[in-house]
């Protein structure tokens, strides 16, 4: 669902067409204003966007949030736990009442606590969002940077350059990425490139995801560039004596911003899932740092006694990926005039 191969081939047509369609006051309105107006009417996309914004805020202010609720993400509280089963007690003062089917959800612990060690799940989910969004966002930026540069170069210059870059994309797309990631993360030393421990591991994750996922966006950019460079305004510019640099930076790139923005939004959830998969396999971030995938893996041991522990991080991943996808779809619809009513 997130492999953005179906490019909105006509989004660059948006400006002239919207002007031509002449909705009221067409005069001063830019593509962005029109798109925003469309997007506002798209309730599903808006909902996705709101969730995305909330998630980003939660991740940004994670330390503040956990400070308010009083539980650092790695702090044990084994008073809440039944030592026999590792499950969460209904009432720590009365162990005889047995396990809490809701996993200790209360005003103290908004999402309950983790079995065995009693860490606060809300706090770990919020901190996990930090890890997930950080890795996914930076990795997406890396994808976009590499993909845009190589895509434009391939599309604009064509010829053997295009052939070489396109074949390189094929090779990268054929790469068994997950296996490679597992192997590479398995041999990361304690420190390298001036980074230590988890900083280094985050760096490696970003590198793997970003460096191997760029061809998706690269292909789209190349395709767009191929059509753009034949367009009249480019021809006009060229006939007026503009150099390649001018054409690329002033004529082509501005028209690429929209598709790049849309596909970045759709790439982020892929990368979130990828990071979660690696953490689930135990090759991502080292404990005790909270990650959603790592929490899920840990939870599988307890699904009979503490089902909430599976559900909470599972829902977090699900909602995040869904929200980003809805948001991205909404953006695409908004920028793509063919979807206009």
């Amino acid at each position, binding site marked *: 669902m997130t492999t953005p191969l179906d490019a909105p081939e006509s989004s660059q047509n948006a400006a002239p067409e919207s002007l031509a369609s002449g909705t009221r006051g067409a005069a001063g309105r830019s593509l962005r204003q029109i798109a925003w107006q469309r997007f506002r009417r798209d309730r599903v996309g808006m909902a996705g966007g709101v969730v995305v914004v909330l998630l980003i805020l939660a991740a940004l202010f994670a330390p503040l949030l956990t400070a308010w609720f009083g539980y650092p993400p790695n702090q044990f509280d084994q008073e809440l736990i039944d030592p*026999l*089963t590792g*499950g969460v007690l209904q009432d720590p003062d009365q162990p005889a009442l047995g396990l809490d089917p809701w996993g200790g959800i209360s005003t103290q612990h908004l999402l309950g606590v983790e079995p065995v060690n009693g860490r606060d799940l809300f706090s770990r989910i919020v901190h996990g969002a930090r890890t997930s969004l950080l890795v996914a966002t930076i990795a997406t930026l890396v994808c976009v940077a590499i993909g845009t540069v190589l895509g434009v170069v391939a599309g604009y210059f064509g010829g053997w350059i295009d052939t070489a870059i396109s074949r390189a994309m094929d090779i990268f797309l054929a790469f068994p990425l997950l296996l490679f990631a597992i192997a590479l993360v398995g041999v990361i030393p304690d420190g390298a490139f001036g980074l230590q421990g988890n900083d280094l591991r985050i760096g490696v994750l970003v590198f793997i995801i970003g460096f191997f996922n760029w061809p998706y966006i690269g292909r789209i950019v190349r395709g767009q560039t191929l059509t753009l460079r034949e367009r009249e305004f480019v021809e006009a510019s060229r006939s007026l004596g503009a150099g390649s640099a001018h054409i690329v930076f002033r004529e082509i790139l501005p028209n690429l911003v929209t598709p790049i923005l849309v596909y970045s939004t759709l790439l982020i959830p892929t990368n979130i899932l990828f990071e979660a998969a690696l953490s689930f396999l135990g*090759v991502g971030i*080292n404990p005790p740092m909270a990650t959603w995938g790592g929490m899920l893996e840990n939870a599988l*041991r*307890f699904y009979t006694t503490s089902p909430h522990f599976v559900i909470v991080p599972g829902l977090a991943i699900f909602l995040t990926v869904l929200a980003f996808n809805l948001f991205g779809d909404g953006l695409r619809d908004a920028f793509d005039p063919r979807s206009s009513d």
Partner: protein
Amino acid sequence: MSTHHVTRALPRRTDPPAGRASAPLAAASALVVLLSACGGDNSGNQEGEGEFNDGESAVVNPSDERGGTLRYALAADFDSPDPGNTYYAFSWNFSRYYARTLLSYDQEPGEEGTELVPDMAEELPESDDDSTEWTVRLKDGLRFEDGSRITSEDVKYAIARSNFGDQALPNGPKYFADLLADSDGYEGPYADEGDPLEGFGGIETPDDRTLVFHLDEPFSEFPYVLIQPQTAPVPADADQGEQYQNRVVSSGPYKFAEDYRPGVALDLERNQEWDAETDDLRPALPDRVELEIGVEQNEIDQRLVNGGVDVDLAGAGVGPAMKGTLITDESRRPDVDNPQTSTLRYFNVNTVMEPLDDAACREAVLHAADRDALQRAWGGDTGGDIATQIMPPSLPGSDQSIDPYPSQDNTGDLEAAREKLQECGRPDGFSTTIGTRSDRPADVSTAEALQQSLSRVGIETEIQQYPSDSYTNTQAGSPDFVQNNDLGLTVYGWAPDWAGGYGFMSKILDGDAIQQAGNSNVSELDDPQINDWFDEAQTIADPDERASIYAQIDERAMEQAAILPVIFERTVMYRPPHLTNVYYHAGYSMYDYMALGTTRE
């Protein structure tokens, strides 16, 4: 979460260091970890007779009623059902149905189960004064399934095929090759067409019923080597090397009903030539024994509880999902056993890297550790008992009173820890790394719990994860890697090949056992006093005297703070109510399969 697969990695052979007899235990380490994998399960009692964990200390549902079919299931296949070619603890237990050995563990619940008794031997072997020559006499009236007599030559041949030469059977340990004298040039029975035992001088067979073993070095625990299934007799003319596993010639109460089908099934029926008069150890109750191979673990657990299977052969206990169900379901509790295995879960505390090379810094770690939290991380009371010393209670010489780092409620003594930090010149603490196995959730939880408790006194740690199939060999198992990655603390597990202190402790505490890869003495403890004690123990014939030396070693290693013991592991096993004579056997760390019967038609 147990450690099945390490078996293959460890049975490397090491040459015995000069003047020591440590080689035999090279392979001990393998089973060590293996045994942890093999708690048992199955068993039962007439409806309502057993109570929770009765099977650990008593025979549940005793009966001498014969008949019925006993149904085993197994998730991953045998290495081989050939008694000469197997290193899985469950296989050592199961193969006794059709393969009698010279000695065996006693058939008793509790610690008595680790005592040695004769099986094919008339009595326990006698040694000369310096424990280098051991004599065993076979009972009269022992026969193979075809009616022919079992002779001392058949036993000697079995040992030869599993231990000697390039074509020796690959899976089992090679204790005999390491231990026996006068056999250096012997190429094994498959080497040439002539007499298969030509040149094998380590075992003499002066007559049909006598075996005399000659050892290179004194080795007072040699009788333990004679419980191995490799000592089960094999008629030379029936041997087909590794293919002998298809139809092992039985010396026990059952024989192969048809050929063994690898990955599918192995069915046994009664062997009419077996004489119960010669065998005190095998009541042989069921008429038939069936084994289904390749059943997924969760399915085995389900079928155990639903009555579709009687015993999970692997004996490692139920999987985590069923474990949660069983210990929370009151109506199932009477049919659940939760016995202590001989496996120690612990942290190695490195003794050579800064600042842990200072014993006071290591002691600070042991004082600060919250043992209660560590036990919870390992699954709480059903996961194991808090350990304050190194040797599991079932081993001779284990002294439960050793506890140099006591604390209120086992939550750690922070005052004492801070004092020790002062003493080692790091009053504000220090930092190091905890190594753990990424695919072992309990290992990771334990590491997190230790990290939490150490941070209370300023000892800051970072957790590094490694894949478990290389962990014991190239990460924790490599002193260079440990040094370069600052792995001051490493999560580890250990179980003995046999119930002796030497078998348990020498590989993890003896300075001479440190090696460059596959190292098990991860803390790199090289204490002259402890090394001397290990040497000394091997020349002492009296088991009690040996046991007291092992207790001294245990106590001194704890004082040196080279090991932070966490728990003696427990497994959760389901004991179906229709099983009879069920008890947990401390020697095999699972139910005693020879005793089992069934009331199911």
